[in-house]
């Protein structure tokens, strides 16, 4: 019973689907951020698996840059979220309707 590349890619796809469902389900912005972290982690597994099975380090390098982008996204996103919470007292997507077209 050998674990192949397809096993890892299935796992990556399943985790990505969980994250995608979370992005669609959530109305609370903090929970929405959690779902985006799941998306980024799912792609990282795929990158690392392909790097291992093709004997190429490029996948791992991409995973590093994805982690760096995730860290900066959290810093800026949480800053914006705190400012919004101080203004309105809620972090709900449904009440963010100040820009009516």
């Amino acid at each position, binding site marked *: *019973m*050998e*674990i192949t*590349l*397809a*096993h*890892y*890619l*299935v*796992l990556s*796809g399943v*985790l*990505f*689907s*969980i*994250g*995608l*469902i*979370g992005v*669609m*389900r*959530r*109305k*609370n912005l*903090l*929970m929405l951020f*959690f*779902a985006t*972290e*799941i998306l980024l*982690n799912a792609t*990282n*597994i*795929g990158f*690392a698996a392909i*790097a*291992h099975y*093709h*004997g*190429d*380090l*490029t996948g*791992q*390098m991409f*995973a590093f*840059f994805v*982690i*760096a982008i*995730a*860290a*900066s996204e*959290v*810093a*800026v996103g*949480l*800053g914006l*979220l*705190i*400012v919004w919470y*101080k203004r309105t007292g809620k972090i709900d997507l449904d009440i963010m309707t100040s820009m009516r077209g």
Partner: protein
Amino acid sequence: MFEAIAFYLFAALTIAMFTITVMTSQALYALTAMAAGMIFISAFFFILGADFLGVIQIIVYTGAVMALYAFGMMFFDTTRTVVEKRDNPRVIFILGVLAATLVVFILVSPIISTHIEANYPINAAMGNSETIGLILFTKFLVPFEIAAVMLLVAMIAGIVLAGKKMDKSLTLMAEEEIALMSATQAKPETEEGAH
């Protein structure tokens, strides 16, 4: 054999943890379940021989990102159950089907691309961290520097956005004081943002 056991064990644990994160209505449960899921994901990196990536995953995700979320959650009212209004379950169904087709494409893609050449092959004589250091500081130097500048920009943005008026504690003030403070602050801040 042991690789298979480890893979299935950690796959089940990761999927369970992330399902809890997505489905629960308690913010604290979501946070702790996601921290656990991040650590379980680092196990896959260790199985795949990407030792350095696994260590970075633990340090950056569970050390920095989760701590940042825990810090951010101190500002929000997290003890309450998160109430979310869902008026359109059909959209979630359609996008769930879309996600399933995505899984199929991910499955098929390695069959299509069977002849891939390794640009930066894994050298068995050197360790994982050594090879990564060698490639990161030669071939990927410019993206590395750009990532450094991006992290600096993110740090400045975080300080500017969240660091304002930290001397006033919103949790120790009465409701009227907060309302008065936000009423007096709302005007000059909006003017400030206009230009």
